[in-house]
C-alpha cells in the first residue's frame, strides 16, 4: 500500500519536474508575448466590432457588431476587389519562389569551387528584403529591374508574343526581382534540409542500380516534403507582411481617417488575416497528408 503511494508520489514528482522545467523555460517569452502580442491582437479583434472615435479625452468605443464588416464588403466594395486581385497575384508567385529556391538549393548543394561564396551571395537579399532598405530601393527605382527599361524588354516581348501571353510574361518578369530577393531564407532552409538526408541512403540506392534521376524522385524529394511545407508557410508569411503590400497600405490609411476610424481598419485587417489563415491551413493540410506516417513537421 505504502509503496504504491510512494511510487505514485515519485511519479508525480518526476512529471512535475519535467513540466516545471518546460514552464520555466517558456516563461520569459510567454510574458513578453502576452503583453505585447497576444493582448494587442485580442483587443484589435474587439476593436473590429466597435466604432472608435478619437476625442479629446481618449478613445470612445461604441459597439456596432458586424457593421464594420458589412460596410467594408457591401457598401465600400473597393476593398474586396483589391483583396482578391492581390491574392491572385500572390498565389501565382508562391509556387515560383518555392520551385526557384528548391533548384538553386539543389545546385548549391553540389560540390564545386567557390561554393561558400555563392551561398553567401544567395542569402544576401535577406538583409535588405525587409523594411527601410527595400523602401529606399523601391523609391529610387531599383525594384523595377532597371535594365527592363534600358533595353526595352517590354517592347521586345510584345513583339514576339501576342496579347494575353505577353502581359503575363511581362508580369512575371517584373515580379522576378521579388522572386529572387525573397528566396534567401528558403534556399537556406532547403540546403539545411538536404543535409538531413543521410549519404548512405544515396549510396545504397546507387548500389541497387538507380540513376540520379530516380534517386532524386525516390529519396531527395520525399525527404524534402516537410521542408517544402515549412518553406511554403514561411513564404506566405513573408509575402503577406511585405511593407508595400497594397492591402496594408489601405488599412493604414483608413486607421486615422475620421469617417472610417480605427475600428473599421481593424475589421479590414481581420478579414485579410482570416484569408491568410485559410491559405495556411490548406498548406498545412497538404503537408501533413504528404508526410503522414513518418512524422514530419507539424
Amino acid at each position, binding site marked *: 500500500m505504502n509503496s504504491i503511494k510512494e511510487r505514485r508520489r515519485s511519479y508525480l514528482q518526476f512529471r512535475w519536474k519535467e513540466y516545471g*522545467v518546460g*514552464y520555466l523555460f517558456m516563461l520569459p*517569452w510567454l510574458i513578453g508575448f502576452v503583453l505585447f*502580442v497576444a493582448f494587442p*491582437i485580442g483587443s484589435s479583434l474587439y476593436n473590429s466590432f466597435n466604432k472608435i472615435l478619437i476625442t479629446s479625452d481618449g478613445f470612445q468605443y461604441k459597439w456596432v457588431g458586424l457593421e464594420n464588416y458589412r460596410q467594408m464588403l457591401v457598401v465600400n466594395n473597393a476593398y474586396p476587389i483589391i483583396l482578391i486581385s492581390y491574392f491572385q497575384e500572390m498565389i501565382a508567385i508562391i509556387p515560383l519562389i518555392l520551385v526557384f529556391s528548391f533548384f538553386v538549393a539543389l545546385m548549391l548543394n553540389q560540390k564545386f569551387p567557390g561554393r561558400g561564396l555563392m551561398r553567401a551571395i544567395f542569402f544576401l537579399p535577406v538583409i535588405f528584403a525587409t523594411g527601410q*532598405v527595400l523602401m*529606399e530601393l523601391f523609391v529610387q527605382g531599383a525594384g523595377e529591374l*532597371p535594365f527592363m527599361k534600358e533595353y526595352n524588354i517590354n517592347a521586345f516581348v510584345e513583339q514576339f508574343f501576342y496579347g494575353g501571353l505577353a502581359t503575363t510574361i511581362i508580369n512575371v518578369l517584373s515580379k522576378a526581382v521579388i522572386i529572387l530577393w525573397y528566396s534567401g531564407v528558403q534556399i537556406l532552409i532547403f540546403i539545411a534540409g538536404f543535409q538531413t538526408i543521410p549519404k548512405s541512403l544515396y549510396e545504397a540506392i546507387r548500389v541497387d542500380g538507380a540513376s540520379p534521376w530516380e534517386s532524386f524522385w525516390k529519396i531527395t524529394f520525399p525527404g524534402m516534403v516537410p521542408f517544402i511545407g515549412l518553406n511554403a508557410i514561411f513564404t506566405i508569411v513573408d509575402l503577406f507582411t511585405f511593407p508595400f503590400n497594397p492591402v496594408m497600405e489601405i488599412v493604414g490609411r483608413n486607421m486615422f481617417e475620421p469617417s472610417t476610424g480605427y475600428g473599421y481598419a481593424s475589421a479590414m485587417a481581420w478579414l485579410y488575416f482570416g484569408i491568410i489563415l485559410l491559405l495556411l491551413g490548406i498548406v498545412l493540410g497538404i503537408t501533413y497528408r504528404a508526410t503522414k506516417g513518418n512524422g514530419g*513537421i507539424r
Partner: protein
Amino acid sequence: MIRKIRKQMTLSRVVLIVFLSCIAVFMLLPIIFLFNNAFKPLNELFLFPPTIFVQHPTMRNFEQLLLHTAAGVVPFSRYLFNSLLISGITLVAVVLVSTMAGYVLSKHRFHFKRLIMALIMISLMFVPETVMIPRYLMMSGLKLTDTYFAHILPFIAAPVAVFLMKQFIDQIPDALVESAKLDGATDMTVFTRIIIPLTAPAVATVCIITFQAVFLDTETSMNYITNETMKTMAYYVTAFTSNVPGVAAVSISAAVGLLMFVPNLILFLLFQRKMIQTMLHSGVK
C-alpha cells in the same frame, strides 16, 4: 595544382557555375546600385531611366548629410549610441529567450504546448499596423514610454525567432538529449552543452533577422518615445530626410540609404561564414 583544378572541372560543373554566377550577379544588383547611388552627383540621381553605375563619383551627398546633422540639437553620436545599445541588448535577449522557448517546445512535454504553437503561427502573420494603438495603451499602462525598455521588450516577444528555433531544434535527435540525461545531465547542462552549440546556425539566422528589424525600426521611436535623446538613429535619419527642403533631401537620402545598410552588411558577412561552417560540420543530420 592547375592539373588538379582541371581535373575537378567537368563540363557539367562549368555549366553549373556559369548558371549560378548569372543569378548571383542579379542578386548583387541592388547592393551595387545602393553603393553607386550614394556617390552619384545630383544630376545623375535624377536621371531617367536610372542608371546602375555612377559616372562621376562625388562625396557631395555625405557632405550634405554632415552639414545638416551638425545643425541638430542632439548630437548625432547620441542616436548612434542608442541604436547600438538597443540592438545589442535586444539581440542577446532574443537569442536567449527564443532558444529556451524553442528547446522546451521541441523536446519537453507540458500543458498548452499545442496552444502555444498555434498562437505563434497566428501571430506570425498578423498585420503590425493594427496592433499599434493597443500596444501603445499597453506601453503607457506599464509606464514604459520614454525608457529603453520600450525599444527592447516588444522584440523579445517575436514569434519568428521562436518558430525558427523550434524547427531547428526538432532536427536534433531526441536520442542525443536522452543519452545526455542518462549520463546525469540536468536540463541546464543539456541546454548549454547540447542545444546551444547545435543551434548555432539558427542563432546566426535569428541574429541577422532580429538585428535588421531592430536597427531599422522607426515605429518605436515614433510612438513610444517623446524624449529626443532616447530615439534611435533609424528614426532620426528618416525624420530628418523628410524635413530637409528641396533637392538636398534626395542626395541625403541616397547617402543615408548606404549608411543604414552598411551595419547590416557587416553583421551579415560576420555571421555568414560561421553559419555555413556550422551547417556543414554540425551533428544535425
